[in-house]
């Protein structure tokens, strides 16, 4: 067998932590065969299925959609399902749980504090017509140009990579961090929303955007191109404009009136009944 035909291997260094024991997290090494197209997540499955079934992590969709597989891989927060081993440029893959979160077990971070911050900023449409919101009779009007003002920020999958990368969060647990703040801006700029004044109160103080000093790492690591750093600066622009009374509040988008003089085309079936 020549040197070239030897099967390639990849060395995984994985940070392990068992909450039952009293010991600190420790590195454990595994060597697995490398196959073309292997992602970091695939490699973890190879370890779990063939070497060490006790290894624990979170993942679900395997296609960069669910946001559950964020890990600290070779020194950067990334989605393990979205990271090819070949793109790391190294035959060693170092995997640790996302920093800035407590470790629950092995590669599982406690994302609870992030979601507490997220929830505190009302990440949903707020408007006075609750009845219409709960039981919609039609759509709210919104132009494409209006949608593009928040669409980028709505691609967030809550993977927490940005929080793990943020140097302010690294020393300040009170600061909300990039994801929740970007989501505040996402809903503030949605023309269907009327919650600016409510979120404005929640954004006051040390949990608000004022502790951001534009290190920009959130935008650098975001796997979905959400650019939370941009969202935070734009959020501040709106808050400053509001403080200086330069912001012109607009009423939330109205419901599009159903035209009553148009008959339904017979070849288009009625919508199925609502399931929720």
């Amino acid at each position, binding site marked *: 067998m020549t040197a070239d035909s030897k099967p390639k291997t990849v060395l995984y260094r994985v940070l392990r932590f068992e909450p039952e024991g009293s010991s600190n997290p420790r590195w454990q090494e595994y060597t697995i065969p490398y196959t073309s197209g292997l992602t970091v997540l695939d490699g973890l499955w190879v370890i779990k299925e063939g070497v060490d079934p006790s290894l624990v992590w979170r993942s679900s969709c395997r296609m960069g959609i669910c946001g559950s597989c964020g890990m600290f891989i070779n*020194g950067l927060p990334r989605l393990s399902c979205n990271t090819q081993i070949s793109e790391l440029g190294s035959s060693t893959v170092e995997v640790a749980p996302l*920093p800035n979160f*407590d470790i629950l077990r092995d590669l599982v*971070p406690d994302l609870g504090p992030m979601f507490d911050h997220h929830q505190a900023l009302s990440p949903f449409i707020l408007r006075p017509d609750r009845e219409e919101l709960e039981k919609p009779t039609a759509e709210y009007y919104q132009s494409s140009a209006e949608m593009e003002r928040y669409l980028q920020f709505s691609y967030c999958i809550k993977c927490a990579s940005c929080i793990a990368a943020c*140097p302010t969060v*690294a020393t300040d647990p009170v600061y909300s961090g990039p994801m929740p703040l970007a989501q505040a801006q996402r809903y503030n700029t949605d023309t269907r929303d009327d919650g600016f004044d409510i979120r404005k109160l929640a954004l006051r103080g040390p949990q608000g955007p004022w502790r951001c000093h534009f290190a*920009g790492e959130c935008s*650098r690591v975001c796997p979905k191109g959400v650019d939370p750093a941009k969202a935070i*600066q*734009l959020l501040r622009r709106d808050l400053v404009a509001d403080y200086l009374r330069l912001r012109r509040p607009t009423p939330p988008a109205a419901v599009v009136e159903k035209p009553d003089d148009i008959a339904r085309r017979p070849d288009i079936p009625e919508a199925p009944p609502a399931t929720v």
Partner: protein
Amino acid sequence: MLESRGHPNRLGMRGWLFGGRWGPDRYLYSLHRITGLGLLLYFAMHIILTSSRALGQGAWEESMARVSGPLFVIGEYLVFVAFAFHAINGLRLALAEVGFGVGKPIEPIYPYRTALDEQRPIVVVAMILVALLIVVGGLDFFVWH
């Protein structure tokens, strides 16, 4: 709400200083904090030192003599360097932080273009200005005087 539920893993100051594979903006962020703290320290020392004037001419001259060696000239120059960086970078940040030079929301198409790319030319101009100030300040401190 924020109590620990597992093994603590917050990066702490390591998150500012040992960024690993991070980008230049993070180091500007760290340098901004470090120079800010340095200037604050200088300010405190300055207040304490100059307050000796209230104790009379003798006390004042004595404290001035204590800070007059070549080492202190270098120290003062470092304060000037920190000031030049902190002032120019601070102006850049003050503008960026109210949404100037960060771009508008766009459709995220890979490779992503972020607010950092929008900000990059401004960073370059700001750092050239800082370098110019440092050089001119150096000439003033060590050559022209």
